[in-house]
């Protein structure tokens, strides 16, 4: 935990935040394919976050402390995106259960993860030297990491199932009638 204070680790955290946020934005950019307005807004939100994070890293925080501001902002944006995605999904009238898609599980994973770790990361910047906090940091962080991995595994299983369903379609040979393709002597 003391290593959180070192500049090298803080730089890694900063990079991780930006990369993680970028990937999640890309995921929601794909997920909102049917909502052009939200889809168009996502790149602007990404740019705005990127600028704010850079300002925090270089002018306010200067890589001296944990990037609570960037992580907090990231959490809020991703939570809003996940909730919006889930609400739009239930508004869509179809008979497909919401939890039968992998996108639902990915959205749920990050909604739970960012909700659960929101306070933890917000407090890390100012409390990381407190031994009691350090204990809690590991417990909470690891618990939510495990939960995130479990939920992402479920999401991956969903994806695998979908692929399996596509491949279980009637095979091509049914279209090729033997009578018309039999070899002629």
């Amino acid at each position, binding site marked *: 935990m003391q290593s959180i204070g070192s500049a090298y680790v803080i730089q890694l955290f900063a990079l991780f935040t930006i990369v993680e946020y970028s990937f999640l934005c890309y995921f929601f950019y794909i997920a909102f394919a049917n909502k052009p307005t939200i889809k168009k807004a996502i790149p602007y939100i990404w740019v705005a976050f990127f600028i704010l994070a850079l300002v925090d890293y270089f002018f306010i925080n200067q890589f001296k402390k944990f990037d609570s501001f960037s992580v907090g902002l990231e959490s809020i944006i991703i939570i809003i995106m996940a*909730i919006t995605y*889930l609400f739009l999904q239930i508004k869509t009238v179809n008979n497909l259960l919401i939890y039968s898609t992998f996108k639902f599980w990915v959205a749920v994973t990050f909604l739970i993860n960012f909700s659960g770790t929101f306070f933890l990361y917000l407090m890390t910047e100012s409390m990381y030297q407190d031994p009691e906090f350090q204990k809690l940091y590991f417990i*909470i962080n690891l618990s939510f990491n495990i939960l995130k991995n479990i939920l992402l595994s479920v999401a991956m299983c969903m994806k695998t199932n979908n692929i399996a369903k596509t491949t279980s379609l009637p095979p091509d040979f049914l279209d090729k009638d033997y009578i018309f393709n039999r070899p002629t002597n």
Partner: protein
Amino acid sequence: MYFLQAGDNNFGVSSVLILGTLGMFVMAITLISVLVFHQRRVIRFNKQIQKMEEERQQMLLRASIRFQEEERQRIAADLHDDAGPLLATARLYLNENLIHQEPASQLQSIFSAKQIIDDTIQLIRNISHSLMPPTLKNFGLEAAVKDQFDKINGSGAINASARFHDNRQRLNDEQELLVFRVIQELVTNIIKHSSAGFIHLTQNAQGNIVYFRIHHDGKGILQDQFDKLEYDSAGLGLKNIQSRIRVLKGKIFFEIDNTQTYYKVTIEVPRILSK
């Protein structure tokens, strides 16, 4: 971060952190659960509506098939009970003609056979007219309705009249047949069930919609009763009316006038001009 540091003094770091984390976690889980259960309920509701609609379609289809079967049975009975014996009798006369060679009796039996064949022709014509009224085919809906109403008037039991206000642009043949069948069914129902003393039909058009309204002074039904009967296994005639109205892409309304004296049935049909 200031408020979190300030909270440290009062509650301790761990309390704030645990409560905050648990609160957020519970909120996220609750939100997800609500969304999932809500969606399940919506899907269940949609399926229920879909099932009801399928059942209704089935019922209409079954009613339509039953109606066709009844019509076939009626034609079969007419042919078997009326045309069959008549033709058999004519055959007997002709057979007798072969046995008795006397010209006088031959002439008599040929005359009788001719009479019977004439009756049979008339009978077959009647059956054919009941299937497709020639007046409708040749002169259109107005003439067919008036002809029908004249026949009803002829019975003397009920006073029937019809007035067409705007029939310059006729409906197409298929629509006219469907409207005629609906009017026929409604009039039959009024005669059978309402004990009415008069029936009056008014036709008018506004824009692209043609309206037919039947007034009668008997005991009628209202819209909610009609809607209920549509889901009932009984009421074959009303189901046929509903099917035909649906094919016409029209509407039908069952009402009573403000004075509670006359029942009104209004049919709205969008006009597709005859080619």
